[in-house]
Protein backbone atom coordinates (compact mmCIF):
# COMPACT_ATOMS: atom_id res chain seq x y z
CA UNK A 1 0.00 0.00 0.00
CA UNK A 2 1.30 3.41 -0.80
CA UNK A 3 1.92 5.70 2.12
CA UNK A 4 -1.09 8.00 2.33
CA UNK A 5 0.77 10.38 4.58
CA UNK A 6 3.29 11.38 1.97
CA UNK A 7 2.52 15.02 1.28
CA UNK A 8 4.19 15.00 -2.10
CA UNK A 9 3.41 12.52 -4.82
CA UNK A 10 6.06 9.85 -5.14
CA UNK A 11 6.76 10.02 -8.80
CA UNK A 12 7.47 7.13 -11.05
CA UNK A 13 8.93 4.52 -8.75
CA UNK A 14 10.69 2.00 -10.95
CA UNK A 15 9.12 -1.40 -11.51
CA UNK A 16 5.50 -0.37 -11.10
CA UNK A 17 2.75 -1.96 -13.10
CA UNK A 18 2.09 -0.11 -16.38
CA UNK A 19 -1.45 0.91 -15.39
CA UNK A 20 -0.11 2.53 -12.28
CA UNK A 21 2.54 4.29 -14.33
CA UNK A 22 -0.10 5.56 -16.71
CA UNK A 23 -2.12 6.76 -13.75
CA UNK A 24 0.84 8.61 -12.37
CA UNK A 25 1.56 10.10 -15.77
CA UNK A 26 -2.00 11.32 -16.06
CA UNK A 27 -1.77 12.71 -12.55
CA UNK A 28 1.46 14.51 -13.34
CA UNK A 29 -0.09 15.91 -16.51
CA UNK A 30 -2.92 17.53 -14.57
CA UNK A 31 -0.68 18.53 -11.68
CA UNK A 32 1.95 20.19 -13.87
CA UNK A 33 -0.66 22.28 -15.70
CA UNK A 34 -0.82 24.27 -12.48
CA UNK A 35 2.34 26.35 -12.54
CA UNK A 36 1.94 27.44 -8.92
CA UNK A 37 1.72 23.82 -7.77
CA UNK A 38 4.99 22.95 -9.49
CA UNK A 39 6.72 25.97 -7.96
CA UNK A 40 5.32 24.98 -4.56
CA UNK A 41 6.60 21.44 -5.00
CA UNK A 42 10.09 22.66 -5.94
CA UNK A 43 10.22 24.99 -2.92
CA UNK A 44 8.98 22.21 -0.67
CA UNK A 45 11.63 19.79 -1.95
CA UNK A 46 14.30 22.43 -1.36
CA UNK A 47 13.03 22.89 2.20
CA UNK A 48 13.21 19.14 2.79
CA UNK A 49 16.82 19.15 1.54
CA UNK A 50 17.65 22.10 3.81
CA UNK A 51 16.13 20.28 6.77
CA UNK A 52 17.97 17.04 5.98
CA UNK A 53 21.36 18.67 5.57
CA UNK A 54 20.91 21.44 8.15
CA UNK A 55 24.14 20.76 10.10
CA UNK A 56 26.13 20.90 6.85
CA UNK A 57 24.40 23.98 5.44
CA UNK A 58 24.25 26.16 8.54
CA UNK A 59 27.31 28.39 8.88
CA UNK A 60 27.10 28.43 12.70
CA UNK A 61 25.63 26.39 15.49
CA UNK A 62 21.99 27.40 16.09
CA UNK A 63 22.56 27.86 19.83
CA UNK A 64 26.08 29.34 19.82
CA UNK A 65 25.91 32.85 21.33
CA UNK A 66 28.38 35.36 19.93
CA UNK A 67 28.57 37.84 22.79
CA UNK A 68 30.44 40.39 20.66
CA UNK A 69 27.70 40.41 18.02
CA UNK A 70 24.34 41.09 19.69
CA UNK A 71 21.59 42.23 17.30
CA UNK A 72 23.98 42.58 14.36
CA UNK A 73 22.00 43.71 11.28
CA UNK A 74 21.99 41.64 8.06
CA UNK A 75 25.34 41.69 6.25
CA UNK A 76 24.24 44.10 3.49
CA UNK A 77 23.27 46.82 5.95
CA UNK A 78 25.64 49.28 7.62
CA UNK A 79 26.95 47.61 10.76
CA UNK A 80 26.36 44.15 9.31
CA UNK A 81 29.07 41.50 9.34
CA UNK A 82 29.73 39.11 6.46
CA UNK A 83 29.76 36.02 8.66
CA UNK A 84 26.18 36.72 9.80
CA UNK A 85 24.26 36.89 6.52
CA UNK A 86 20.81 37.56 8.05
CA UNK A 87 22.15 39.18 11.22
CA UNK A 88 22.03 37.95 14.80
CA UNK A 89 19.38 37.83 17.52
CA UNK A 90 19.37 39.57 20.94
CA UNK A 91 21.77 37.03 22.43
CA UNK A 92 24.09 36.94 19.43
CA UNK A 93 22.97 33.76 17.69
CA UNK A 94 23.17 33.57 13.90
CA UNK A 95 19.65 33.94 12.51
CA UNK A 96 20.34 32.12 9.24
CA UNK A 97 21.67 29.08 11.08
CA UNK A 98 18.67 29.08 13.39
CA UNK A 99 16.28 29.32 10.43
CA UNK A 100 18.03 26.42 8.67
CA UNK A 101 17.76 24.25 11.76
CA UNK A 102 14.21 25.49 12.33
CA UNK A 103 13.17 23.93 9.01
CA UNK A 104 13.74 20.53 10.66
CA UNK A 105 11.30 21.28 13.44
CA UNK A 106 8.58 22.71 11.24
CA UNK A 107 8.70 19.87 8.72
CA UNK A 108 8.91 17.31 11.50
CA UNK A 109 5.88 18.85 13.20
CA UNK A 110 3.94 18.82 9.94
CA UNK A 111 4.88 15.23 9.14
CA UNK A 112 4.20 13.83 12.61
CA UNK A 113 0.90 15.65 12.95
CA UNK A 114 -0.31 14.49 9.54
CA UNK A 115 0.72 10.88 10.16
CA UNK A 116 -0.94 10.86 13.58
CA UNK A 117 -4.17 12.56 12.60
CA UNK A 118 -4.44 10.83 9.22
CA UNK A 119 -3.92 7.31 10.55
CA UNK A 120 -6.28 7.65 13.51
CA UNK A 121 -8.72 9.59 11.35
CA UNK A 122 -8.78 6.91 8.67
CA UNK A 123 -9.30 4.10 11.16
CA UNK A 124 -12.10 5.90 13.01
CA UNK A 125 -13.70 7.10 9.78
CA UNK A 126 -13.65 3.62 8.24
CA UNK A 127 -15.10 2.23 11.42
CA UNK A 128 -17.89 4.82 11.54
CA UNK A 129 -18.78 4.52 7.86
CA UNK A 130 -18.54 0.75 7.75
CA UNK A 131 -20.15 -0.16 11.06
CA UNK A 132 -22.87 2.52 11.02
CA UNK A 133 -25.38 2.34 13.88
CA UNK A 134 -24.41 3.49 17.34
CA UNK A 135 -20.65 3.30 16.66
CA UNK A 136 -21.12 5.82 13.87
CA UNK A 137 -23.39 8.02 15.95
CA UNK A 138 -21.08 8.15 18.97
CA UNK A 139 -17.92 8.71 16.92
CA UNK A 140 -19.44 11.48 14.87
CA UNK A 141 -20.88 13.29 17.91
CA UNK A 142 -17.42 13.23 19.51
CA UNK A 143 -15.93 14.65 16.32
CA UNK A 144 -18.63 17.36 16.20
CA UNK A 145 -17.68 18.20 19.74
CA UNK A 146 -14.00 18.66 18.91
CA UNK A 147 -14.98 20.81 15.92
CA UNK A 148 -17.19 22.99 18.14
CA UNK A 149 -14.07 24.56 19.65
CA UNK A 150 -11.83 26.90 17.66
CA UNK A 151 -8.90 24.61 16.86
CA UNK A 152 -6.14 26.85 18.17
CA UNK A 153 -8.00 27.40 21.44
CA UNK A 154 -8.47 23.68 22.01
CA UNK A 155 -4.82 23.02 21.16
CA UNK A 156 -3.82 25.78 23.60
CA UNK A 157 -5.86 24.30 26.43
CA UNK A 158 -4.56 20.80 25.67
CA UNK A 159 -1.00 22.07 25.85
CA UNK A 160 -1.88 23.82 29.11
CA UNK A 161 -2.99 20.44 30.44
CA UNK A 162 -0.12 18.38 29.03
CA UNK A 163 2.55 21.01 29.62
CA UNK A 164 4.32 23.14 27.00
CA UNK A 165 6.77 21.54 24.63
CA UNK A 166 7.23 20.25 21.12
CA UNK A 167 5.82 16.74 21.56
CA UNK A 168 2.70 17.90 23.39
CA UNK A 169 2.20 20.55 20.72
CA UNK A 170 2.18 17.86 18.06
CA UNK A 171 -0.24 15.66 20.01
CA UNK A 172 -2.60 18.58 20.63
CA UNK A 173 -2.62 19.73 17.01
CA UNK A 174 -3.05 16.18 15.72
CA UNK A 175 -6.06 15.77 17.97
CA UNK A 176 -7.78 18.94 16.80
CA UNK A 177 -7.10 18.23 13.10
CA UNK A 178 -8.15 14.60 13.19
CA UNK A 179 -11.98 15.08 13.01
CA UNK A 180 -11.58 16.41 9.47
CA UNK A 181 -10.05 13.10 8.41
CA UNK A 182 -12.70 11.08 10.21
CA UNK A 183 -15.48 12.98 8.48
CA UNK A 184 -13.84 12.80 5.06
CA UNK A 185 -13.12 9.08 5.34
CA UNK A 186 -16.60 8.36 6.61
CA UNK A 187 -18.36 10.21 3.83
CA UNK A 188 -16.10 8.64 1.20
CA UNK A 189 -16.81 5.19 2.66
CA UNK A 190 -20.55 5.84 2.64
CA UNK A 191 -20.27 6.82 -1.01
CA UNK A 192 -18.38 3.65 -1.93
CA UNK A 193 -20.23 1.15 0.24
CA UNK A 194 -23.20 0.61 -2.08
CA UNK A 195 -21.14 0.21 -5.23
CA UNK A 196 -21.01 -3.06 -7.14
CA UNK A 197 -17.32 -3.79 -6.64
CA UNK A 198 -17.80 -3.72 -2.86
CA UNK A 199 -20.77 -6.04 -3.07
CA UNK A 200 -18.90 -8.44 -5.31
CA UNK A 201 -15.91 -8.46 -2.94
CA UNK A 202 -18.29 -9.20 -0.08
CA UNK A 203 -19.98 -11.98 -2.03
CA UNK A 204 -16.55 -13.40 -2.88
CA UNK A 205 -16.03 -13.80 0.83
CA UNK A 206 -13.83 -10.86 1.82
CA UNK A 207 -13.73 -10.30 5.59
CA UNK A 208 -14.56 -7.03 7.29
CA UNK A 209 -10.97 -5.87 7.64
CA UNK A 210 -10.14 -6.73 4.05
CA UNK A 211 -13.27 -4.94 2.83
CA UNK A 212 -12.45 -1.87 4.89
CA UNK A 213 -8.75 -1.49 4.22
CA UNK A 214 -8.09 -3.30 0.94
CA UNK A 215 -11.30 -2.84 -1.01
CA UNK A 216 -12.81 0.46 0.07
CA UNK A 217 -9.96 2.55 1.46
CA UNK A 218 -7.85 2.86 -1.73
CA UNK A 219 -10.85 4.40 -3.48
CA UNK A 220 -11.26 7.04 -0.79
CA UNK A 221 -7.68 8.24 -0.80
CA UNK A 222 -7.89 11.24 -3.16
CA UNK A 223 -9.69 13.66 -0.82
CA UNK A 224 -7.61 12.39 2.09
CA UNK A 225 -4.36 13.18 0.33
CA UNK A 226 -5.56 16.72 -0.39
CA UNK A 227 -6.74 17.19 3.19
CA UNK A 228 -3.47 15.72 4.43
CA UNK A 229 -1.51 18.32 2.50
CA UNK A 230 -3.63 21.17 3.80
CA UNK A 231 -3.33 19.81 7.35
CA UNK A 232 0.43 19.73 6.96
CA UNK A 233 0.46 23.49 6.48
CA UNK A 234 -2.15 24.08 9.19
CA UNK A 235 -0.02 22.05 11.60
CA UNK A 236 3.04 24.16 10.86
CA UNK A 237 1.06 27.39 11.31
CA UNK A 238 -0.61 26.28 14.54
CA UNK A 239 2.65 24.95 15.99
CA UNK A 240 4.32 28.26 15.18
CA UNK A 241 1.40 30.10 16.80
CA UNK A 242 1.73 28.00 19.96
CA UNK A 243 5.48 28.62 19.92
CA UNK A 244 4.78 32.33 19.54
CA UNK A 245 2.46 32.23 22.56
CA UNK A 246 5.22 30.55 24.56
CA UNK A 247 3.48 27.18 24.79
CA UNK A 248 5.08 25.32 21.90
CA UNK A 249 8.74 24.42 21.51
CA UNK A 250 10.74 25.98 24.34
CA UNK A 251 13.82 28.18 23.97
CA UNK A 252 16.56 27.73 22.90
CA UNK A 253 14.95 25.41 20.32
CA UNK A 254 15.25 27.23 16.98
CA UNK A 255 11.57 26.73 16.15
CA UNK A 256 10.35 29.59 13.96
CA UNK A 257 7.36 30.59 16.10
CA UNK A 258 9.43 30.43 19.28
CA UNK A 259 12.07 32.62 17.58
CA UNK A 260 9.36 35.21 16.90
CA UNK A 261 8.26 35.13 20.52
CA UNK A 262 11.80 35.72 21.76
CA UNK A 263 12.30 38.57 19.30
CA UNK A 264 9.01 40.35 19.93
CA UNK A 265 10.22 43.02 22.29
CA UNK A 266 12.93 44.07 19.84
CA UNK A 267 10.69 44.68 16.84
CA UNK A 268 11.06 48.43 16.76
CA UNK A 269 14.84 48.26 17.24
CA UNK A 270 15.82 45.34 15.04
CA UNK A 271 13.34 44.47 12.30
CA UNK A 272 15.36 41.51 11.03
CA UNK A 273 14.86 39.38 14.14
CA UNK A 274 11.12 39.20 13.47
CA UNK A 275 11.05 39.49 9.69
CA UNK A 276 13.04 36.42 8.69
CA UNK A 277 11.49 33.72 10.91
CA UNK A 278 8.00 34.81 9.86
CA UNK A 279 9.04 34.84 6.22
CA UNK A 280 10.30 31.28 6.61
CA UNK A 281 6.91 30.21 8.02
CA UNK A 282 5.03 32.01 5.24
CA UNK A 283 7.16 30.53 2.44
CA UNK A 284 6.86 27.00 3.81
CA UNK A 285 3.10 27.20 4.37
CA UNK A 286 2.54 28.88 1.01
CA UNK A 287 4.55 26.23 -0.84
CA UNK A 288 2.56 23.42 0.79
CA UNK A 289 -0.76 25.15 0.11
CA UNK A 290 0.22 25.60 -3.55
CA UNK A 291 0.95 21.88 -3.76
CA UNK A 292 -2.37 21.19 -2.05
CA UNK A 293 -4.28 23.27 -4.58
CA UNK A 294 -2.51 21.46 -7.41
CA UNK A 295 -3.25 18.07 -5.88
CA UNK A 296 -6.91 18.93 -5.55
CA UNK A 297 -7.15 19.95 -9.18
CA UNK A 298 -5.27 16.85 -10.31
CA UNK A 299 -6.97 14.29 -8.07
CA UNK A 300 -10.55 15.47 -8.05
CA UNK A 301 -12.18 14.36 -11.28
CA UNK A 302 -15.18 16.57 -10.62
CA UNK A 303 -13.08 19.71 -10.70
CA UNK A 304 -10.94 18.59 -13.61
CA UNK A 305 -11.13 20.90 -16.59
CA UNK A 306 -13.73 23.10 -15.00
Amino acid at each position, binding site marked *: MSDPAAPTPALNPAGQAPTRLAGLREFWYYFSVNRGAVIGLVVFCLLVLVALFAPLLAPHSPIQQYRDALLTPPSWLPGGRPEFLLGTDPVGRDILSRLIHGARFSLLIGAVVVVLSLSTGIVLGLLAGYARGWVDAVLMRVMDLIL*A*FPSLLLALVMVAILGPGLINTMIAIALVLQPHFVRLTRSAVLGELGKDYVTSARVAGAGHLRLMFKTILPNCLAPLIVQGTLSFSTAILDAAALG*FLGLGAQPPTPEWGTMLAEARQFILRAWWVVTFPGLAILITV*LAINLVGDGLRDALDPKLKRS
Partner: protein
Amino acid sequence: MIRFILNRLVLIVPTFIGITIIAFAFVRVLPGDPVLLIAGERGVTAERYQQLMTQFGYDRPLYEQYFSYLFGLFQGDFGTSISTKRPVIRDFLTLFPATVELAVFATLFAVLVGVPAGILAAVKRGSWFDQLTMGTALVGYSMPIFWLGLLLIILFSGVLGWTPVSGRISLTYFFPAVTGFMTIDALLSGQRGAFQSALHHLILPAITLGTIPLAVIARQTRSAMLEVLGDDYVRTARAKGLPPRAVIGQHALRNALIPVVTTIGLQVGVMMAGAILTETIYSWPGIGKWMIDAISRRDYPVVQAGLLLIAMIVMAVNLIIDVLYGLINPRIRHQ
Protein backbone atom coordinates in the same frame (compact mmCIF):
# COMPACT_ATOMS: atom_id res chain seq x y z
CA MET B 1 -39.77 28.21 9.41
CA ILE B 2 -40.35 27.93 13.17
CA ARG B 3 -40.11 24.17 12.87
CA PHE B 4 -36.83 24.58 11.05
CA ILE B 5 -35.43 26.76 13.83
CA LEU B 6 -36.66 24.40 16.55
CA ASN B 7 -35.11 21.52 14.66
CA ARG B 8 -31.73 23.20 14.65
CA LEU B 9 -32.05 24.08 18.32
CA VAL B 10 -32.66 20.44 19.21
CA LEU B 11 -29.62 19.42 17.17
CA ILE B 12 -27.24 21.55 19.23
CA VAL B 13 -28.34 20.17 22.59
CA PRO B 14 -25.98 17.15 22.49
CA THR B 15 -23.11 19.41 21.43
CA PHE B 16 -23.87 21.77 24.29
CA ILE B 17 -23.89 18.93 26.81
CA GLY B 18 -20.63 17.65 25.34
CA ILE B 19 -19.00 21.07 25.66
CA THR B 20 -20.00 21.31 29.31
CA ILE B 21 -18.62 17.81 29.95
CA ILE B 22 -15.30 18.79 28.37
CA ALA B 23 -15.12 21.98 30.44
CA PHE B 24 -16.09 20.02 33.54
CA ALA B 25 -13.45 17.39 32.83
CA PHE B 26 -10.78 20.00 32.09
CA VAL B 27 -9.81 20.81 35.69
CA ARG B 28 -9.98 17.15 36.64
CA VAL B 29 -7.50 15.97 34.03
CA LEU B 30 -4.94 18.66 34.85
CA PRO B 31 -1.80 17.33 36.45
CA GLY B 32 -1.96 18.10 40.15
CA ASP B 33 -4.73 18.26 42.71
CA PRO B 34 -7.82 19.94 41.22
CA VAL B 35 -8.89 21.30 44.59
CA LEU B 36 -5.62 23.16 45.06
CA LEU B 37 -5.57 24.25 41.41
CA ILE B 38 -9.05 25.76 41.59
CA ALA B 39 -8.45 27.37 44.97
CA GLY B 40 -5.09 28.71 43.83
CA GLU B 41 -3.76 28.61 47.37
CA ARG B 42 -0.39 27.51 48.64
CA GLY B 43 0.53 25.84 51.91
CA VAL B 44 -2.96 24.52 52.54
CA THR B 45 -3.46 22.80 55.91
CA ALA B 46 -5.39 19.57 56.21
CA GLU B 47 -8.40 21.33 57.74
CA ARG B 48 -8.43 24.01 55.07
CA TYR B 49 -8.15 21.28 52.45
CA GLN B 50 -11.21 19.52 53.82
CA GLN B 51 -13.03 22.83 53.86
CA LEU B 52 -12.11 23.50 50.21
CA MET B 53 -13.12 19.95 49.29
CA THR B 54 -16.59 20.54 50.68
CA GLN B 55 -16.80 24.05 49.27
CA PHE B 56 -16.14 22.85 45.71
CA GLY B 57 -18.12 19.65 46.24
CA TYR B 58 -15.21 17.38 45.42
CA ASP B 59 -16.23 15.02 48.20
CA ARG B 60 -19.39 14.09 46.33
CA PRO B 61 -19.75 11.51 43.53
CA LEU B 62 -18.61 12.64 40.07
CA TYR B 63 -22.05 12.71 38.44
CA GLU B 64 -23.39 14.82 41.31
CA GLN B 65 -20.47 17.21 40.84
CA TYR B 66 -21.28 17.47 37.15
CA PHE B 67 -24.96 18.19 37.71
CA SER B 68 -24.23 20.82 40.31
CA TYR B 69 -21.71 22.34 37.87
CA LEU B 70 -24.34 22.34 35.12
CA PHE B 71 -26.92 23.76 37.51
CA GLY B 72 -24.48 26.52 38.44
CA LEU B 73 -23.92 27.34 34.77
CA PHE B 74 -27.62 27.91 34.22
CA GLN B 75 -27.58 30.33 37.14
CA GLY B 76 -24.65 32.19 35.65
CA ASP B 77 -22.08 30.69 38.02
CA PHE B 78 -18.98 30.06 35.90
CA GLY B 79 -16.53 29.95 38.79
CA THR B 80 -14.30 32.52 40.46
CA SER B 81 -11.03 33.81 39.05
CA ILE B 82 -7.99 33.07 41.20
CA SER B 83 -6.18 36.24 40.25
CA THR B 84 -9.00 38.81 40.36
CA LYS B 85 -11.17 36.99 42.95
CA ARG B 86 -14.20 38.09 40.94
CA PRO B 87 -16.79 35.87 39.28
CA VAL B 88 -15.34 34.79 35.95
CA ILE B 89 -18.52 35.75 34.11
CA ARG B 90 -18.16 39.36 35.26
CA ASP B 91 -14.61 39.65 33.88
CA PHE B 92 -15.76 37.97 30.71
CA LEU B 93 -18.63 40.38 30.17
CA THR B 94 -16.34 43.36 30.74
CA LEU B 95 -13.80 42.16 28.19
CA PHE B 96 -16.11 40.56 25.65
CA PRO B 97 -17.23 43.82 23.95
CA ALA B 98 -13.60 44.59 23.08
CA THR B 99 -13.30 41.29 21.22
CA VAL B 100 -16.66 41.78 19.53
CA GLU B 101 -15.68 45.26 18.41
CA LEU B 102 -12.41 43.95 17.00
CA ALA B 103 -14.14 41.02 15.30
CA VAL B 104 -16.86 43.23 13.81
CA PHE B 105 -14.33 45.59 12.25
CA ALA B 106 -12.21 42.67 11.05
CA THR B 107 -15.31 41.10 9.45
CA LEU B 108 -16.26 44.41 7.85
CA PHE B 109 -12.76 44.68 6.41
CA ALA B 110 -12.82 41.10 5.16
CA VAL B 111 -16.29 41.33 3.59
CA LEU B 112 -16.00 44.81 2.12
CA VAL B 113 -12.71 43.95 0.42
CA GLY B 114 -13.15 40.23 -0.13
CA VAL B 115 -16.59 40.09 -1.74
CA PRO B 116 -15.99 42.78 -4.40
CA ALA B 117 -12.52 41.39 -5.13
CA GLY B 118 -13.96 37.90 -5.57
CA ILE B 119 -16.76 39.13 -7.84
CA LEU B 120 -14.39 41.14 -10.00
CA ALA B 121 -11.93 38.25 -10.21
CA ALA B 122 -14.72 35.92 -11.37
CA VAL B 123 -16.10 38.37 -13.91
CA LYS B 124 -12.64 39.00 -15.32
CA ARG B 125 -11.59 35.39 -15.08
CA GLY B 126 -8.03 34.77 -16.26
CA SER B 127 -7.13 38.45 -16.36
CA TRP B 128 -4.14 39.89 -14.51
CA PHE B 129 -6.54 41.18 -11.86
CA ASP B 130 -7.89 37.68 -11.30
CA GLN B 131 -4.41 36.20 -11.04
CA LEU B 132 -3.20 38.96 -8.75
CA THR B 133 -6.24 38.66 -6.47
CA MET B 134 -6.05 34.90 -6.22
CA GLY B 135 -2.28 35.01 -5.68
CA THR B 136 -2.72 37.55 -2.89
CA ALA B 137 -5.54 35.50 -1.43
CA LEU B 138 -3.35 32.41 -1.28
CA VAL B 139 -0.60 34.39 0.45
CA GLY B 140 -3.16 35.77 2.89
CA TYR B 141 -4.52 32.30 3.53
CA SER B 142 -1.02 31.03 4.31
CA MET B 143 -0.15 34.00 6.49
CA PRO B 144 1.04 33.52 10.06
CA ILE B 145 -1.08 36.42 11.34
CA PHE B 146 0.98 36.91 14.48
CA TRP B 147 3.89 37.73 12.18
CA LEU B 148 1.75 39.95 9.96
CA GLY B 149 0.72 41.88 13.06
CA LEU B 150 4.34 42.44 14.03
CA LEU B 151 5.23 43.58 10.50
CA LEU B 152 2.32 46.05 10.49
CA ILE B 153 3.56 47.45 13.81
CA ILE B 154 7.09 47.84 12.40
CA LEU B 155 5.82 49.60 9.28
CA PHE B 156 2.90 51.74 10.47
CA SER B 157 3.90 52.39 14.07
CA GLY B 158 7.69 52.19 13.86
CA VAL B 159 8.67 53.59 10.46
CA LEU B 160 5.70 55.78 9.53
CA GLY B 161 4.48 56.60 13.03
CA TRP B 162 0.82 56.63 11.88
CA THR B 163 -0.75 54.28 14.38
CA PRO B 164 -0.28 53.44 18.06
CA VAL B 165 1.35 50.16 19.03
CA SER B 166 -1.17 48.84 21.52
CA GLY B 167 -4.34 49.42 23.53
CA ARG B 168 -7.82 50.59 22.56
CA ILE B 169 -7.61 54.38 22.94
CA SER B 170 -5.16 57.10 24.01
CA LEU B 171 -4.81 57.50 27.77
CA THR B 172 -5.67 61.20 27.40
CA TYR B 173 -9.30 60.31 26.86
CA PHE B 174 -11.45 59.15 29.68
CA PHE B 175 -15.16 58.50 29.58
CA PRO B 176 -17.55 55.98 31.12
CA ALA B 177 -18.08 52.72 29.29
CA VAL B 178 -21.71 52.82 28.21
CA THR B 179 -21.80 50.09 25.61
CA GLY B 180 -18.29 48.67 26.04
CA PHE B 181 -17.59 49.40 22.39
CA MET B 182 -14.85 51.99 22.40
CA THR B 183 -15.80 53.56 19.08
CA ILE B 184 -19.44 54.04 20.12
CA ASP B 185 -18.56 55.20 23.63
CA ALA B 186 -16.10 57.69 22.15
CA LEU B 187 -18.84 59.12 19.94
CA LEU B 188 -21.27 59.26 22.86
CA SER B 189 -18.75 61.06 25.07
CA GLY B 190 -18.61 63.89 22.57
CA GLN B 191 -14.92 64.46 23.29
CA ARG B 192 -13.04 65.88 20.38
CA GLY B 193 -10.66 63.42 18.78
CA ALA B 194 -11.73 60.48 20.92
CA PHE B 195 -13.42 58.65 18.07
CA GLN B 196 -10.41 59.10 15.79
CA SER B 197 -8.13 57.81 18.52
CA ALA B 198 -10.29 54.72 18.99
CA LEU B 199 -10.31 54.09 15.24
CA HIS B 200 -6.55 54.55 15.05
CA HIS B 201 -6.07 51.91 17.69
CA LEU B 202 -8.50 49.59 15.97
CA ILE B 203 -7.24 49.65 12.42
CA LEU B 204 -4.12 47.47 12.60
CA PRO B 205 -5.66 44.78 14.83
CA ALA B 206 -8.72 44.65 12.56
CA ILE B 207 -6.57 44.22 9.45
CA THR B 208 -4.49 41.52 11.17
CA LEU B 209 -7.51 39.59 12.34
CA GLY B 210 -9.38 40.06 9.05
CA THR B 211 -6.62 38.85 6.74
CA ILE B 212 -7.33 35.12 6.73
CA PRO B 213 -11.14 35.55 6.54
CA LEU B 214 -10.56 38.04 3.73
CA ALA B 215 -8.55 35.50 1.75
CA VAL B 216 -11.10 32.74 2.34
CA ILE B 217 -14.05 35.00 1.45
CA ALA B 218 -12.40 36.26 -1.73
CA ARG B 219 -11.68 32.72 -2.92
CA GLN B 220 -15.14 31.49 -2.01
CA THR B 221 -16.89 34.45 -3.65
CA ARG B 222 -14.94 33.92 -6.85
CA SER B 223 -15.69 30.22 -7.14
CA ALA B 224 -19.37 30.68 -6.20
CA MET B 225 -19.67 33.46 -8.76
CA LEU B 226 -17.98 31.39 -11.47
CA GLU B 227 -20.38 28.54 -10.83
CA VAL B 228 -23.42 30.79 -11.07
CA LEU B 229 -22.17 32.63 -14.16
CA GLY B 230 -22.23 29.35 -16.08
CA ASP B 231 -25.87 28.65 -15.20
CA ASP B 232 -28.71 28.71 -17.72
CA TYR B 233 -30.66 31.51 -16.10
CA VAL B 234 -27.67 33.82 -16.28
CA ARG B 235 -27.28 32.97 -19.95
CA THR B 236 -30.99 33.70 -20.42
CA ALA B 237 -30.62 37.05 -18.71
CA ARG B 238 -27.71 37.86 -20.98
CA ALA B 239 -29.56 36.64 -24.06
CA LYS B 240 -32.56 38.82 -23.43
CA GLY B 241 -30.24 41.78 -23.63
CA LEU B 242 -29.75 42.87 -20.02
CA PRO B 243 -26.65 44.99 -19.52
CA PRO B 244 -23.77 43.06 -17.87
CA ARG B 245 -24.09 45.12 -14.70
CA ALA B 246 -27.69 44.03 -14.22
CA VAL B 247 -26.93 40.40 -15.04
CA ILE B 248 -24.18 40.25 -12.46
CA GLY B 249 -25.67 42.51 -9.83
CA GLN B 250 -29.27 41.32 -9.86
CA HIS B 251 -29.24 37.78 -11.19
CA ALA B 252 -25.89 36.18 -10.51
CA LEU B 253 -24.89 37.87 -7.26
CA ARG B 254 -27.96 36.86 -5.27
CA ASN B 255 -27.37 33.17 -5.73
CA ALA B 256 -23.61 33.43 -5.57
CA LEU B 257 -23.75 35.09 -2.16
CA ILE B 258 -25.62 32.20 -0.52
CA PRO B 259 -22.55 29.99 0.01
CA VAL B 260 -20.54 33.11 0.86
CA VAL B 261 -22.81 33.81 3.84
CA THR B 262 -22.00 30.35 5.20
CA THR B 263 -18.32 30.99 4.67
CA ILE B 264 -18.54 34.25 6.59
CA GLY B 265 -20.28 32.41 9.41
CA LEU B 266 -17.66 29.70 9.51
CA GLN B 267 -15.01 32.37 9.93
CA VAL B 268 -16.30 33.20 13.41
CA GLY B 269 -14.47 30.23 14.87
CA VAL B 270 -11.36 31.25 12.95
CA MET B 271 -11.77 34.77 14.33
CA MET B 272 -11.98 33.58 17.93
CA ALA B 273 -8.73 31.67 17.44
CA GLY B 274 -7.21 34.63 15.60
CA ALA B 275 -8.31 36.97 18.38
CA ILE B 276 -6.07 35.08 20.80
CA LEU B 277 -3.05 35.93 18.66
CA THR B 278 -4.12 39.41 17.55
CA GLU B 279 -5.02 40.56 21.04
CA THR B 280 -1.72 39.27 22.39
CA ILE B 281 0.26 41.22 19.80
CA TYR B 282 -1.61 44.50 20.23
CA SER B 283 -2.29 44.18 23.98
CA TRP B 284 -5.97 44.39 23.09
CA PRO B 285 -7.92 43.87 26.33
CA GLY B 286 -10.33 41.24 25.02
CA ILE B 287 -11.12 37.63 25.87
CA GLY B 288 -8.33 36.23 23.67
CA LYS B 289 -5.62 37.96 25.69
CA TRP B 290 -7.57 37.15 28.86
CA MET B 291 -7.38 33.43 28.04
CA ILE B 292 -3.65 33.55 27.29
CA ASP B 293 -2.96 35.48 30.50
CA ALA B 294 -5.07 32.99 32.43
CA ILE B 295 -3.15 30.05 30.98
CA SER B 296 0.22 31.58 31.82
CA ARG B 297 -0.97 32.52 35.33
CA ARG B 298 -2.49 29.06 35.83
CA ASP B 299 -5.81 30.72 36.58
CA TYR B 300 -7.65 27.52 35.73
CA PRO B 301 -11.21 28.60 36.61
CA VAL B 302 -10.83 31.31 33.97
CA VAL B 303 -9.45 28.86 31.39
CA GLN B 304 -12.28 26.46 32.11
CA ALA B 305 -14.99 29.10 31.81
CA GLY B 306 -13.33 30.78 28.83
CA LEU B 307 -13.19 27.50 26.93
CA LEU B 308 -16.87 26.91 27.63
CA LEU B 309 -18.01 30.44 26.84
CA ILE B 310 -16.04 30.73 23.61
CA ALA B 311 -17.35 27.37 22.39
CA MET B 312 -20.88 28.47 23.27
CA ILE B 313 -20.47 31.69 21.33
CA VAL B 314 -19.16 29.88 18.27
CA MET B 315 -22.05 27.45 18.56
CA ALA B 316 -24.61 30.26 18.86
CA VAL B 317 -23.20 32.13 15.87
CA ASN B 318 -23.20 28.97 13.80
CA LEU B 319 -26.83 28.44 14.74
CA ILE B 320 -27.73 31.97 13.68
CA ILE B 321 -25.90 31.52 10.39
CA ASP B 322 -27.69 28.23 9.86
CA VAL B 323 -31.05 29.92 10.37
CA LEU B 324 -30.09 32.84 8.13
CA TYR B 325 -29.05 30.34 5.50
CA GLY B 326 -32.48 28.75 5.71
CA LEU B 327 -34.06 32.17 5.38
CA ILE B 328 -32.24 33.10 2.19
CA ASN B 329 -32.21 29.61 0.71
CA PRO B 330 -35.65 27.94 0.77
CA ARG B 331 -34.19 24.74 -0.66
CA ILE B 332 -32.40 24.06 2.65
CA ARG B 333 -35.44 24.91 4.73
CA HIS B 334 -37.72 22.39 3.10
CA GLN B 335 -35.37 19.46 3.19
